[in-house]
C-alpha cells in the first residue's frame, strides 16, 4: 500500500542538479530514514515532497487520500524572524491549524493536543515564554511540538536532533517510534545513523544521486551501508 510514490524525480537549483532520477516509494506505516552527506539533497527532497519545491522532471504522488493538511513538518532552518513577538504556546498551537477549514478558533481537542505535545518535549513550563528569547535547542523543541500537532498521518523531520542534548534525543526517538507504532508514517533526515538503524524500517541513502534504497537489514549488508557505518 503505497502512501507516497516518487518516480524519476529530478530536482535542481538554477540548473545545478541536486537529485537526479530518484525513484522510491513510502508505504503507510513506514519509518523512512534519509541519510547522506551534507549537500546531498536531503532537505531539498523533503521540500519536494511538501510541494515547496517543484520538480524539474518526474513526479511525487500522494495516495490513499493523503492530504497536505495531514502532514507535520520540522524544517532544518526556520525563517521565523528574530524580532517576532510570539510565545511558545502560540507557536505550538499554530500547528493544529491545518486541520481547520474555516473555523476561526481552536477547539478543546486542539489545546489538549498542543499541551500533550509540549509535555512530551518537556517545554510545558515554557508556554508563556517568548519564542525568540529561547535557546537554540529549546526553539527546536517548540518547532518539534508544532510539527507533532500538525502530523495527522505523516511526519517529516529534517535533522530533528541537531542541537538537542542526549537525554532529549533519546526521548525523541521514543516519541517518534510511538507515533510510528500508532500508525503514522515517518520520514526523517538524520545524521544519527545508529538511531536510524535501531528504529527505522527503511533507509534512503543519498549521495549526489541515490545510493541505496531498501530495508534496514539489506542496507546493513550493502556496501554504502557498511562504509557509512564504518565512518559513523
Amino acid at each position, binding site marked *: 500500500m503505497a502512501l507516497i510514490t516518487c518516480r524519476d524525480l529530478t530536482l535542481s537549483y538554477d540548473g545545478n542538479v541536486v537529485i537526479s532520477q530518484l525513484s522510491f516509494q513510502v508505504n503507510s506505516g513506514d519509518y523512512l530514514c534519509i541519510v547522506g552527506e551534507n549537500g546531498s539533497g536531503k532537505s531539498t527532497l523533503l521540500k519536494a515532497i511538501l510541494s515547496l519545491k517543484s520538480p524539474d522532471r518526474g513526479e511525487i504522488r500522494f495516495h490513499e487520500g493523503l492530504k497536505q493538511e495531514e502532514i507535520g513538518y520540522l524544517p532544518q532552518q526556520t525563517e521565523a524572524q528574530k524580532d517576532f513577538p510570539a510565545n511558545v504556546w502560540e507557536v505550538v498551537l499554530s500547528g493544529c491549524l491545518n486541520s481547520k477549514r474555516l473555523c476561526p478558533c481552536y477547539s478543546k481537542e486542539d489545546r489538549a493536543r498542543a499541551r500533550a505535545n509540549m509535555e512530551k518535549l518537556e517545554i510545558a513550563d515554557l508556554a508563556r515564554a517568548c519564542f525568540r528569547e529561547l535557546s537554540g535547542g529549546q526553539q527546536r523543541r517548540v518547532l518539534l511540538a*508544532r510539527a507533532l500537532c500538525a502530523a495527522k498521518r505523516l511526519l517529516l523531520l529534517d535533522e530533528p536532533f541537531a542541537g538537542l542534548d542526549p537525554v532529549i534525543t533519546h526521548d525523541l526517538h521514543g516519541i517518534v517510534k510511538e507515533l510510528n507504532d500508532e500508525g503514522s508514517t515517518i520520514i526523517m533526515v538524520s545524521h544519527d545513523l545508529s538511531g536510524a538503524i535501531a528504529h527505522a524500517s527503511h533507509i534512503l541513502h543519498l549521495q549526489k544521486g541515490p545510493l541505496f534504497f531498501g530495508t534496514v537489514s539489506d542496507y546493513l549488508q550493502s556496501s554504502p551501508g557498511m562504509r557509512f557505518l564504518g565512518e559513523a
Partner: protein
Amino acid sequence: MFELLREMLNYPFMARALVAGGLIALCASLLGVSLVLKRYSMIGDGLSHVSFGALAVATALNAAPLQVSIPVVVAAAFLMLRLSENSRIKGDALIALISTGSLAVGIMALSLTRGMNVDVYNFLFGSILAMGRGDVLVSVVLSAVVLVLYALFYSKIFAVTFDECFARATGIKVGAYNLLIALLTAVTVVLGMRLMGALLISSMIIFPALTSMRVFKSYKSVVLSSAALSVICFFVGIVISYAWATPVGASIVVVNILAFLVFFAAGHIKYR
C-alpha cells in the same frame, strides 16, 4: 476638558470623523502588525501614494472618489504583493517606482483641471472635513468587514506571518491569505487616506505595531496593544488638532511618536 469634548461633538463633521476615523485606526493597527512582521511596510506606504493618484484622477474627472480608488488600490496591492514576493530587491525598487509615479500622475491630473489648489494639500496632508455623510457610512461598513475578516482569520494570519514555509508545507493556502492581507490593507488605506493624508496614513499602520513590540512579547498581546494604542492616539490626536487648530493627520502621527518613545523607554527599563 469635557467642555472641549462637548464643543467638538457639536460639529457634525467632527462626530463623523471620530466614528469613521476610530474604526479605520483600529483596522490599520491590526493589519499593521502583519505588515510590519512580514516586512511589507513598503506596501502600505506605496498604496497610500497610489491611493492619492486614484483619488486625484477621480476628482479631476468628477467621478465618485471611493468607488474609483478602491478598485485601483486593490489592484495595486495585488501587483505589489507579487513584486515583493518574487524578488526582494527589485520588488522594493518597483514599488517605489509605482508609488512615486502615481503621486506624480495625481498631481498632474489635479493641476491641469483645477490648478494646484486646496485639493492637493488636503489629499497629501488630510482633512477633518473630508468625511461626508455617505463616506462615513461606507467607511463604517467597510471597516466592519475588515474587522470581521481579520477576526475570522486571526490564527491563520498568525501562522502565515510567523512561518510562511511551514504554513505552506502543511497545506494552508498561504497565497490566499497574503492576498487577503493586501486586500484589507488596500481598503483601509483608501478609507483612511482622506482623513490622514496620503503622506501620513502609512504611519497609522506602522506605528502602533512597532510601538507595541517594544514592550509586548506575544503575538496576541502585541495585536491587542496595537489596537488600543492606535485608537487612543487617534482620539488624542484629534483633540489636539481641534484645540490647537493643527492638521489632523500630523497631530495623530505626533501623538504616535510620543507613544513610541514612552514604550521604547518602558521596554528598556523592563528588559534591561
